[in-house]
């Protein structure tokens, strides 16, 4: 039985939701992007900390009674250091897995084993193979359904499903609300008369996680372009997880071998795998969306332009969206440029 009252917050796409779910708590991806919370976070962190981290920190502290624990990783330095703050400012149990930057599967696998032991102690529950298998089946079924939806997003002619709608659906996954019914009928059946061909250029979204409150950026983008795919922790990156063997070893392999984060060193595999996606989806451009001070993506802008060979529109945000008008103009100009080059 899922304990509806308690959440198990997590910060990273390398943390297996299946393992979190075995505890009986609800896995909840920390994607708080509320500007007032981010400002509140500045009582503890400097103004040049990541807005997502500032917002998440405030969110957790304001809602500490909702969380059974928080699980993070060493993926991003600021996200990791948020845990120092949590350990000092709250009593919520925290666990950080050492997510190696270089190719060190043994470290990752050891850390997952460690996390399992810690969560067993926390939840007072042994993670028997049957329980793990049950969660794998459940979450894999959800991911399969989402993959079918995602296919509707990237049809060659036009989307059956808008990226904004899809992002909202993905938010359910991130919030652990996978039991919610998704009305899929409309998304799989084209309307009578067929689909109207879209004239908007196809683009791919990469970058900092898009928080729950920031989906308006997707709507803004869709007014001008078609978002046919994304590699974004706040949207559908989780679809890259495919667990073959329905056991703990299978979980470790699937999460370790997913399309790697851009912070992995070296990050050639990120470029190779995302590059393949861009070709498969026949993308005409890339939207790089970064939060302020997101080193891992901001440093790579020029490399992306060079390596992917596609026009890149870089949008930077502090979560306030005070620059909405400018964003609209920039997006429209980008779309116009892409249309002219088609």
């Amino acid at each position: 039985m899922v304990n509806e009252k308690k959440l198990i917050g997590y910060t990273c796409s390398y943390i297996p939701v299946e393992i979190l779910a075995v505890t009986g708590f609800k896995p909840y991806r920390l994607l708080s992007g509320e500007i007032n919370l981010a400002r509140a976070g500045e009582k503890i962190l400097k103004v040049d900390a990541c807005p997502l981290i500032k917002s998440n920190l405030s969110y957790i502290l304001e809602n500490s009674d909702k969380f059974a624990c928080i699980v993070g990783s060493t993926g991003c330095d600021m996200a990791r250091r948020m845990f120092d703050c949590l350990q000092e400012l709250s009593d919520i149990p925290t666990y950080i897995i050492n997510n190696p930057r270089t190719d060190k599967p043994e470290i990752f696998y050891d850390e997952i084993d460690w996390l399992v032991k810690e969560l067993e102690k926390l939840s007072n529950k042994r993670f028997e193979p049957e329980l793990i298998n049950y969660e794998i089946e459940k979450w894999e079924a959800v991911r399969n359904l989402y993959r079918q939806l995602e296919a509707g997003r990237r049809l060659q002619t036009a989307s059956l499903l808008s990226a904004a709608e899809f992002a909202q659906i993905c938010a359910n996954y991130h919030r652990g609300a996978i039991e919610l019914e998704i009305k899929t009928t409309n998304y799989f059946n084209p309307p009578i008369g067929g689909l109207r061909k879209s004239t908007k250029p196809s683009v791919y979204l990469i970058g900092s996680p898009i928080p729950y409150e920031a989906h308006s950026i997707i709507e803004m983008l869709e007014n001008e372009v078609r978002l046919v795919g994304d590699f974004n922790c706040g949207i559908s990156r989780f679809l890259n997880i495919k667990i073959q063997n329905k056991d703990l070893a299978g979980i470790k392999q699937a999460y370790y071998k997913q399309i790697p984060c851009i912070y992995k060193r070296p990050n050639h595999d990120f470029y190779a795998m995302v590059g393949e996606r861009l070709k498969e989806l026949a993308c005409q451009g890339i939207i790089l969306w970064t939060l302020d001070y997101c080193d891992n993506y901001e440093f790579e802008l020029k490399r992306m332009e060079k390596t992917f060979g596609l026009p890149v529109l870089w949008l930077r945000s502090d979560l306030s969206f005070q620059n909405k008008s400018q964003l609209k103009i920039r997006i429209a100009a980008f779309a116009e440029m892409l249309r002219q080059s088609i």
Partner: protein
Amino acid sequence: MPKKIGLSDWSEQFKLVSVEQIKKFTYYHNSEWGIYLSPPATFMVYGTRELKRLKLDNSFAALRLWGFVFNESERLFRAKQIGKKVIATMGDLGIVPVIIMAFPDCVPFYPECIWWTPFFKESTVLLDTATQLGIPEATCFSKATLGAFYKRAYFPRPDAIFASTGASCDDYSCIMQLVEDLGYEIVWLEIPLRKGQKAYPNNASGRLEEYLIGEYQRVWKKMVELTGISNKNQLIKSIKKANQLRNLVTSIKNLTYEAPKAPLPGLELMTIEFGNLYGYADIEEWIDILKMIKRTIEDRIEKGLGVLQEDAIPIAWITPSADPLLLNLVEDAGLRIVQTEYVINQALVPIEEDIDPFRALARAFLQASLIGKTSERVKRIIAGVKEGKIKGVLITNMLGASHCAMETGLIMRFLSAVPVLAIDVPQPFGITEQLKTRILAFAETLKH
């Protein structure tokens, strides 16, 4: 009389240095071209323009120190010229060079130490180059490293590059990735997160040690491929040498911090501390310089002499300043540095000599400043505050640097018993009157 003096005073003082003394001190034991003693004005003319504004200690030992440090670029090019292998070690700040120095004619260096160059040279060339190569404006000044690799004029092309990444600062990890993208071949090493006894109760840091040992063995293997030599006894000797340096520096720091009058300025002390990373590309000569520094300090203490006033207020300094001028300004405001946390704890701690050398290096690294919790990083300073030895704390940050943004608030909280001033070090030429006023106001607060 010990004091801090400027360029013109140093030029006058240098006239008293005999030719024999100038020829006596050389790097790589080469009397033909290894001379490094020059009046600081020479380096200013060659481009180290901030020397016009800096004040340096007036001892002969300090003259040796600065001549040697400012000569480093030439020394690295010389090393290559005479057939030595120049090895860039990046990111780990203090351990990999100990392995490199176990191989004959191999000279390790840290490209990130070039982060002082824009300030010493009062030039944003390296920073601008880094920006043109894609690095955002608000980033750690270690981005100068990328500019240096691109321009190829600050050090020779390394024969090997080891880049350590992991549970440490993101800025430099991203910089190292861009260096690789310039076409340099890099051997990547993993830095694990230090979780401590609570995380791994049965074997406190055992697994972390094993991971690191594996990485250091990879370094060893690469160096064997490069040199054709593999002699583990040399690693033991290298560790002993590193410890000789570390013990010397600890002794210098303790003497200086505990003396009634500061016998050596903070800028020289910071330079000495960073020498632990790799001995500025000639560890033998560097150790000799520090022995002279230590004798100078001991002499000054014995005579009751110092470079600062006796009532200078003791402070701790957290995170090194990229701009050396700040250390002068802080002391001019009536403060003295009695404790530091310069993100290089792993380069200061003694390395165990009675266990397997790779394990010893791993254990030393596991005491690194940035791979664990912030509270661990400032433990010594908290103790110093409690003992009443530290009256205030200065934190120097870089805008946009990942660990600075996240740690500063917590550090201020841990050290709330004393006034804490946190400032963002500005770009070269960026020290404004407002910043000076803040430092003076901080000093006033401490005085009262």
